[in-house]
């Protein structure tokens, strides 16, 4: 099993074994490098929060170890496609807001977990106790870095939690074992994150969200691979929503355009990078999908009606919409045609 991972990520492997180097490196530079590494490892926005959740909750999901066995596969085609399916199962089958993180929380912790994650390797015992149980750590390690048995067991030895769980975790990834279907493996993971959450508030949030559609909705932006979630209940007007969207994506947009920005323009750039979302005057326009699957411009219906019918949001490049002012019906037809 070990060979499978060595080839894929030599850089990460180095970081693990040279733990000392990490603690010596300066803050931002290291974080940035870690930034890039982690991003390579994880496919999309939801997985950020997924990793976050897993670290906080003791019982670990099955998604990560599934990745262990399957990610970097040239020689095992069945496994890699199984992983694809497994991954998408995990991502898609999660009900809205299973992970129930507020968006600001996500933003703050995005940075933190990038730093925090690899600190785990360097710090050893303390951080292990602070985060999840040994099984979880192993799964995390495996997810990004590959489960080198020697390394994993050495960290586990320093944090004796449940001995049975350790032996179970040690037995973990054999391809096709235990003989259960992929979708069952993911089932346990997604529900564990919500159901066994010690944080009752997030459980209540999840319930609330299942009550009324449009509470937490996904929002994607053109050109940004990482999607987000917004809580429509947190705003009472379109203006506030628009500001929130700007805040959400500004950072990511800047990161995506990093090459284009010089140091000087960065400081003089206007406060709101993403403006004119609602009146079609800006570079981007906010659209949403309602409960019948139609794509509508945000802003045309009363706010309350919007909240109760919006299923997901999208920030499109205004140039992708027709230049002339369109009625909601026309947008619907046009966007459905695309």
């Amino acid at each position, binding site marked *: 099993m070990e060979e499978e991972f060595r080839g894929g990520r030599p850089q990460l492997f180095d970081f693990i074994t040279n733990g000392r180097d990490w603690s010596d490196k300066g803050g931002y530079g290291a974080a940035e490098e870690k930034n890039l590494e982690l991003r390579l490892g994880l496919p999309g926005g939801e997985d950020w929060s997924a990793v976050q959740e897993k670290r906080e909750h003791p019982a670990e999901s099955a998604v990560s170890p599934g990745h262990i066995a399957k990610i970097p596969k040239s020689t095992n085609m069945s*496994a890699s496609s199984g992983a694809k399916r497994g991954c998408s199962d995990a991502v898609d089958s999660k009900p809205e807001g299973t992970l129930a993180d507020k968006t600001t929380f996500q933003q703050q912790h995005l940075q933190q977990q990038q730093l925090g994650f690899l600190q785990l390797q360097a710090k050893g015992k303390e951080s292990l106790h602070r985060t999840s149980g040994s099984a979880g750590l192993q799964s995390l390690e495996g997810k990004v870095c590959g489960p080198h048995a020697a390394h994993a067991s050495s960290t586990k030895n320093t944090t004796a939690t449940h001995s049975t769980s350790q032996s179970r975790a040690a*037995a973990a990834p054999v*391809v096709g074992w235990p003989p259960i279907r992929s979708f069952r493996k993911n089932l*346990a993971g997604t529900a564990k994150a919500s159901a066994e959450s010690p944080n009752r508030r997030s459980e209540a949030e999840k319930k609330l969200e299942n009550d009324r559609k449009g509470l937490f909705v996904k929002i994607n932006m053109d050109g940004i691979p990482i999607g987000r979630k917004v809580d429509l209940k947190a705003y009472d007007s379109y203006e506030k929503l628009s500001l929130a969207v700007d805040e959400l994506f500004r950072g990511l947009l800047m990161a995506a355009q990093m090459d284009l920005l010089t140091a000087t323009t960065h400081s003089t750039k206007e406060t709101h990078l993403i403006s004119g979302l609602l009146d079609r005057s800006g570079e981007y326009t906010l659209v949403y999908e309602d409960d019948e699957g139609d794509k509508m411009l945000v802003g045309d219906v009363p706010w309350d009606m919007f909240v109760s019918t919006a299923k997901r949001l999208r920030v499109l490049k205004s140039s992708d919409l027709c230049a002339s002012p369109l009625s909601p019906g026309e947008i619907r037809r046009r966007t459905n045609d695309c």
Partner: protein
Amino acid sequence: MTYFPEEVVEHIFDFVGSHRDRNTVSTVCKAWYQVERLSRRTVFVGNCYAIGPERVMARFPGIKSLSVKGKPHFADFNLVPYDWGGFALPWIVAAARLCPGLEELRLKRMVVTDDGLELLARSFPNFKSLVLISCEGFSTDGLATIATYCRGLRELDLQENEVEDHGCQWLSFFPDSCTSLVSLNFGCLKGEVNGGALERLVARCPNLRSLKLSPAVSVESLNKILARASHLVDLGTGSFAVDHRTDVYHMLMNSFPKFKSLRNLSGFWDASPCCLRAVYPVCTSLTVLNLSYAPAIQGDDLIKIICLCFKLQKLWVLDSIGDKGLAVVASTCKELQELRVFPCDIYGAGTTSVTEEGLLAVSSGCPKLNSLLYFCYQMTNAALITIAKNCPHFTRFRLCILDPGKPDPVTDQPLDEGFGAIVRSCKNLRRLSLSGRLTDQVFLYIGMYAERLEMLSIAFAGDSDKGMIYVLNGCKNLRKLEIRDCPFGDIALLKNVAKYETMRSLWMSSCDITLGGCKALAAKMPRLNVEIINENEETYEFEENLSDLHKLEKIYVYRTVAGPRNDAPDFVWTL
């Protein structure tokens, strides 16, 4: 019998139902063969590569129902590469041409495409029933064409398929004139569902008896559906978690009491304990309950619901039920015939699970138990011996001890004696899956006693070739043998080659089979396809240069009258 005119013989054959019997009847004489083939209405093809579709249709031109299976069983656990094969299209094409009266198609573990579904939808005017199990390769667009063109469709049953989501509109493609649905199951769909279209469809199908929803169907939608479909016998809920302070919740609580005919319940995708209370009113008449998709329901809540289900015949749960919960099953569900306990959290730390105690309890409390799938962390010989004594009627016994090769924790012995007791006691055992630490001895028992055994699954077991040889020389009804990670080599493979022509298929992966062994097998048995699945790209191009001693990762051997298949991908070599 040769004095009877054909019509009479045909009429007699109407009473000959099972495939096996009809197959036998057709071998008696030419006259019977003719009568049988023209009057046959249902055909089952267990391995799609055992015979070509045209040949089937030519022999049985009058078939109304066709079932075909594709990939080997271990494909369920990602052991078979993605594009290995099992394509449905040739079957649909042949049927469209030769059997236009087809009414029912059941496919399992096959690759079905949207094109195939469209051809299906357009080619059979009387088409009534489509059942796809563990298939892949199609999207909701394909479903839309089925909905559009299959007038009079009665059943659309999608079980555990990988379906690409191209939007929720497919449900809207059922025309307003479609009122014939009896069974609709789309539980495996991952995408959004058009609630309005679904509700309208249910409302206009008065014969609907079985409805299984996907996780995307909201509780609100479910409430509306339940209000219009009070004759349902079989229900799979969609999403099943709402805050108990809402109107939706109260409606849900009041939705179930009026169901007089409801017998099967499943779904419960994200069920919360308080929502589960909604189904208490119907529990006393339930015969089938599947809570195995509801990891949020813990043991105590499971117990609350199970102690009401005294008519239950089939129960699927997660191991969060615990031994305590299984004891409740044992004392309540006296009619229980099938039990499946799935692992909730295979990588978890210290969560509830089940042990041999739970199974012991069920075996002594449920005298009608005959089918078992049980995932646990440990098992003892003593327990298995007792279970065998308590339940001699097992037809399916599948035990999976999650730690491969784990011995009896009490005695540290292999589980040979325990499984031996099972096969000795259960004379009607047709399917067996082994696990835990096992030596060649268990295979000796299986070969000696498991006379009715048809399917055997082995993993991380055995010590030498003898194990496999015992099985091949013994079990005279063996049809499917699947082995992984066992020390069986060429000697075992070649000991009894004639056996493979009496079986449907043999799968071996991560064993000690060499290229030379397979070549020898292929040479001796020309009517077998000996497929080598070689995913190691390095050896691809050097096929000719591979030494006979090269160990093979995966082989799949099956009898066929169709010769080597012509749709094999690069990494599959048929010798």
